[in-house]
C-alpha cells in the first residue's frame, strides 16, 4: 500500500493522535469523573428514596400472637418485607418502639388490635394487619375465611376507562429515558468534537501541511474513528459504573442495565456517531472559524433534537406506530431504537432493519461528506456554500 508509514496506515496515525490528545484533555477526564460521580450519587439517592432494602420489624405481644401467622402470610403475599418477633408484653414492646429497635408493636386483642408505632404504620403492613384482623373476626363469628373469600371474590366492579389517567412513569420507562438522554448527549457532544476538530485544522492552517502528505478522505476517516473510539471509551466507563452500581444495590431490577443491553446501546452510539459525525464534519469543513461551527452544524442538529423529542413523545407507548416507524429511520434510530430496546421487547426484524438502513445511510453519507470535505477544506475565509461544496465549484 502506498499510504503505509513504517507499516502503519495513515488513518491509524491520525486516529491515534486524536485519541492521545483527547484522553489527555480536561474535557475527557473532568467529564468522565463528573459523570461517574453523578451516576454514583443518582444510584445512592435512588436507593435511599425507594428505601426498600430494610424490612419492617413487627412485634406481637402475648395477647395478639394469634394474628402472627395470617399477618405473615398476607404480608408476604403483598410483597412487604417484614421481620416478625414475639414480645413479652405491651410495656416491653412500647419501650422497644421508643428505642427504635422495633417498628410496629401489635398489642390489644386479635379482633381489636392496636398498632403502636413511632409515627406511621407502613401501608403494606397496615393492609396485611387489617386482613389478619378480618380473618380473626370471621373465625370468631364462626365463619371460614377461605369460604368467605371465594364467595365475595369477583364481586368487584369492572372499570372500563376511556381516558386512563396518567399513572406516572414506571421504573422501566425512567431507565429507558436515561438511556435516551445519555445517547442524545453523547451523540451531540462527540459529533460537535468532530466538527470542532475539522475547523481547528482549518483555523490553525495546519490543514495545508497535512494535506501535502495525507489524502483528505483518510484525514477525515482517521479523525472520526479516533474521536469515536474516545467517545465509546467514555460511554463504556460510565456504563460500567452504572452496571456495577445497579447490580450492587438492586435499585432497578429490570433488564435495562444488563451487559447485553448495554452492549446494544454502545452499538447504537457507534452507528449514530458515524452518521452524525460524518455529517457534522462535512458541514464544518465549509467554515473557517470556531465561531461559525454552531451555525454550520445547526441544520443537522435539528435531526438530533427531533430524535430526542420523539424519545419523550413515545416513551409511554414504545411499540406504537409513531415509535415503530420513527425508530427505523436512520436519523432517529440511534436514540429511539435504543430507548425502545431499553423499555420494551422490540421484534428482532425491526432492529435488523434499522441497523441495515443506518449502515446504508452511513455508506452514502461518507461518500458525500468526503467530497464536501475535500472541496471545502482548503477554502479559507467566507463559508463555502453547501451546493458548491458538493459540486466542487
Amino acid at each position, binding site marked *: 500500500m*502506498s*499510504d503505509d*508509514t*513504517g507499516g*502503519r496506515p*495513515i488513518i491509524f*496515525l*491520525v486516529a491515534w*493522535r486524536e485519541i*492521545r*490528545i483527547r484522553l489527555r484533555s480536561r474535557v475527557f477526564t473532568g467529564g468522565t469523573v463528573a459523570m461517574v460521580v453523578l451516576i454514583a450519587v443518582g444510584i445512592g439517592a435512588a436507593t435511599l428514596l425507594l428505601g426498600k432494602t430494610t424490612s419492617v420489624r413487627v412485634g406481637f405481644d402475648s395477647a395478639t400472637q394469634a394474628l402472627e401467622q395470617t399477618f405473615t402470610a398476607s404480608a408476604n403475599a403483598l410483597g412487604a418485607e417484614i421481620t416478625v418477633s414475639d414480645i413479652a408484653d405491651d410495656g416491653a414492646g412500647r419501650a422497644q418502639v421508643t428505642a427504635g429497635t422495633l417498628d410496629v408493636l401489635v398489642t390489644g386483642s386479635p379482633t381489636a388490635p392496636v398498632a403502636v408505632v413511632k409515627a406511621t404504620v407502613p401501608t403494606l403492613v397496615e393492609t396485611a394487619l387489617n386482613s389478619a384482623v378480618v380473618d380473626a373476626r370471621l373465625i370468631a363469628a364462626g365463619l371460614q375465611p377461605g369460604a368467605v373469600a371465594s364467595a365475595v371474590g369477583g364481586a368487584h366492579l369492572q372499570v372500563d376507562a376511556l381516558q386512563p389517567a396518567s399513572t406516572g412513569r414506571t421504573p422501566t420507562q425512567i431507565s429507558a429515558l436515561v438511556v435516551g438522554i445519555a445517547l442524545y448527549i453523547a451523540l451531540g457532544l462527540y459529533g460537535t468534537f468532530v466538527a470542532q476538530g475539522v475547523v*481547528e*485544522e482549518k483555523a*490553525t*492552517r*495546519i*490543514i*495545508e*501541511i*497535512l*494535506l*501535502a*502528505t*495525507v*489524502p483528505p478522505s483518510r484525514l477525515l476517516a482517521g479523525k472520526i474513528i479516533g474521536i469515536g473510539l474516545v467517545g465509546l471509551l467514555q460511554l463504556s466507563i460510565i456504563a460500567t459504573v452504572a452496571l456495577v452500581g445497579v447490580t450492587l444495590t438492586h435499585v432497578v431490577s429490570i433488564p435495562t442495565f444488563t451487559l447485553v443491553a448495554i452492549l446494544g446501546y454502545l452499538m447504537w452510539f457507534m452507528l449514530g456517531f458515524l452518521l452524525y459525525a460524518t455529517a457534522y464534519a462535512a458541514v464544518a469543513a465549509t467554515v473557517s472559524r470556531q465561531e461559525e461551527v454552531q451555525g454550520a452544524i445547526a441544520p443537522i442538529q435539528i435531526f438530533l433534537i427531533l430524535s430526542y423529542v420523539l424519545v419523550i413523545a413515545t416513551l409511554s407507548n414504545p411499540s406504537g406506530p409513531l415509535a415503530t416507524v420513527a425508530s427505523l429511520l436512520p436519523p432517529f434510530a440511534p436514540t429511539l431504537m435504543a430507548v425502545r430496546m431499553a423499555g420494551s421487547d422490540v421484534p428482532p426484524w425491526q432492529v435488523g432493519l434499522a441497523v441495515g438502513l443506518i449502515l446504508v445511510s452511513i455508506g452514502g453519507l461518507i461518500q458525500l461528506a468526503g467530497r464536501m470535505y475535500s472541496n471545502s477544506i*482548503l477554502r*479559507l475565509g467566507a463559508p463555502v456554500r453547501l451546493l458548491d461544496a458538493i459540486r466542487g*465549484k
Partner: protein
Amino acid sequence: MIGQVASGKRALEIDNISKRYGDVVALDKLSLDVASGEVFGFVGRNGAGKTTAMRIVLGVLDGDEGEVRFAGTPLTLEVRRRIGYMPEERGLYPKMPLGEQLAYLAELHGMSPVAAGAAAQTWLERFGLGERAKDDVQRLSMGNQQRVQLAAALVFDPIMLVLDEPFSSLDPVAVDVMSAVLRERADAGLPVIFSSHELELVERICDRIAIVNRGKVVAHGTVAELRTGAAERRLVDVPNAAAGWGEDIPGTTFVSRDGHGLLFEIDPGTDDQALLHAALATGPVREFHRVQPSLGDIFRTVLQEDAPPTVQQEDAS
C-alpha cells in the same frame, strides 16, 4: 525509497501547468525547473500565481493541465510525501507539545515512530528548543513558533524543500537562521525553492530566480543573467546643478533623484561620456559611477514590459 538527484541535475520540473478559478486564470502554462543543490527564488506580485504553483507541486491542489516531474518522472504521492513544505499560511496544532507534534508530522511523512521521535528532538535542539519539547506550541513566542514551523518541513529528512514566503514576518535573527538552513540543505544536495517579496534577500541567497507575472514565468535565470540586457545606469552627484538639470542630455534617460544624486539610464549603443561632460559643466562632480540594477529594478522593469493592455486585478494567489 526515493533517493536524491545528483547535484546540479534537473530535479524538479514544472511543465506547462495551468489552473483556472472560474474566469480567473491563476496559472497560464507556467514552466520552470530547479536543479538539485540549488536555491531557487520565486518572485512576483501578490496574486501572480506563486502559491497556486507550489500547491500544485505538493498535490494539495490539482492543476487543470500540465505536469510536475521529479527526477524525470511524474510526481507520485510517495514522492510528494518526501517534500518539505511550508505553506504561506503557517499552521501547527496550538495545543500539542512541540516534540510530539514534530514526531507526528515525521510519521505522517513516512518515518518509523522511533526515527520520528529522534528526528524531532534533533531538530528542536538544533533550533535551541530541546528543553521545551513538552511545551504546547501555543506557549512559544512567535519567533520560536516559526522555528518549529521550519523544523516541521525538515524533520522527516525531505528530498526537496518548497517554502512559500518563508521569510515573511521573521525577525532579523530568524532571517539569518532561515537563510543558513536553506543554503545548508541546498549544499546537502536538495533542490530548494521558495517564494518571497523580500527582493534583496532573494538576490543575496538565490542561485537562480524566476519572476512570475499573471500566471507565467516572465523572466528566469541567475541575477547576473537577468541583468544582461538591462540598461546601463549611472549615478551622478552634482551639487551645483540647477533644478531640472539632466532631463535632456542626449543618449541618456533621467530615472530618479535620491539622497545620493541623480540616476540615469544610458541608452543602448551610446557611451556615458556625454553625461560626464554635462555633469562637469555644472561645476564639481562628487560622484560618477556605474550602478548595477538591483533585483527590484529588474523586477519592476520586467513587470512593466509584461503589463497588460488594460488594468486587470487578479484575486487568485
